[in-house]
């Protein structure tokens, strides 16, 4: 009886030891993975600013109309006509108070090209158009 109890407690101790080893391995793996993730900066591709794209678009009267009417579908079509299926982010700001008027496209990061338009149809109404194009 006593021998059987001793053998049983040994088995429990062995199970607990194995448990502790597995838990330690899991904890170590998590710690190593976490450190590896946090030690490197977030992925970032410094796309070159699409100055030429924006300069071409800013000379297109229908693009200007779409900018001032905040027509997101038309704006998206204009940008895609120039850059194809590459991801982009186009934002329009009121130049007086930098209020965001419209933002379309993907949430990508990169160097934005900026063009400021003084107005439309003879009226003075300055706005800023910012464009980022991904690769």
């Amino acid at each position, binding site marked *: 009886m006593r021998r059987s109890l001793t053998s049983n407690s040994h088995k429990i101790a062995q199970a*607990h030891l194995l*448990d*502790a080893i*597995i*838990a330690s391995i*899991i*904890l170590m793996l*998590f*710690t190593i*993975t*976490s450190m590896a*993730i*946090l030690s490197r900066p*977030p992925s*970032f591709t410094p796309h070159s*600013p699409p*100055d*030429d794209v*924006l*300069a071409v678009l*800013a*000379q297109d*009267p*229908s693009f*200007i109309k779409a900018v001032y009417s905040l027509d997101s579908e038309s704006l998206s079509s204009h940008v895609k006509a120039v850059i194809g299926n590459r991801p982009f982010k186009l934002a329009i700001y009121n*130049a007086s108070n930098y209020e965001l008027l419209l933002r379309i496209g993907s949430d990508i*990061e*990169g*160097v*934005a*090209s*900026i*063009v*400021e*338009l*003084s*107005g*439309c*149809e*003879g*009226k*003075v*109404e*300055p706005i*800023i158009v*910012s464009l*980022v194009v991904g690769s």
Partner: protein
Amino acid sequence: MNYTAASLVIGITLLAITVSIAVNAPHYMCIAQVSLSTIEASLRHATLNALIAHLCGKSVKTALRENIEALDPRYVPLSRYRVVECHPVDVSTPWPKALLKVEYWIALGDRAQPYNCTVKLEGYVTSTSSEGLYDVVSIKVYDERGLILSPELLSFNPKPLTVKVEDGKLKLYYPRGLRPSTIEITDTRGLRIYLST
């Protein structure tokens, strides 16, 4: 709670913390730049907008000054500018030309880069004739880039029955006997001229 359950709880907690930190980690701030091409695009648009305002009756100098002053010097660094040529000088008179030519000096560091900007719409009547049931007015219209041969880029008032392109000219077909004495032509940008037939 046994050891396995405890390690699972701790593991999940660590995972949640890791994900939370990764999601809320600071990202690179988006920076922006302006280049000569975008500065020139801004100035070209300001010139066009000033000419349209001028065609609506505003003095060209006032219209241009208002448009230039509306531009932020951080995005459009300008040393100075001057009006080289402007039509029409009197907006009450129909002129076959709407033109504004401005010389800008863009401030680039310690030097100024000149930029000559012209926006225009001009045209003239090459001939008038009659063809069957129609009176035909042949015209040539130019903008600063050259001859316009796409009728879709222009709107006409009064509107012709049809517009054809022949021999580098636009032929406007009106009903016989209803040829207008003056045709108003507007391009897609809003520039407007009047042609006397």
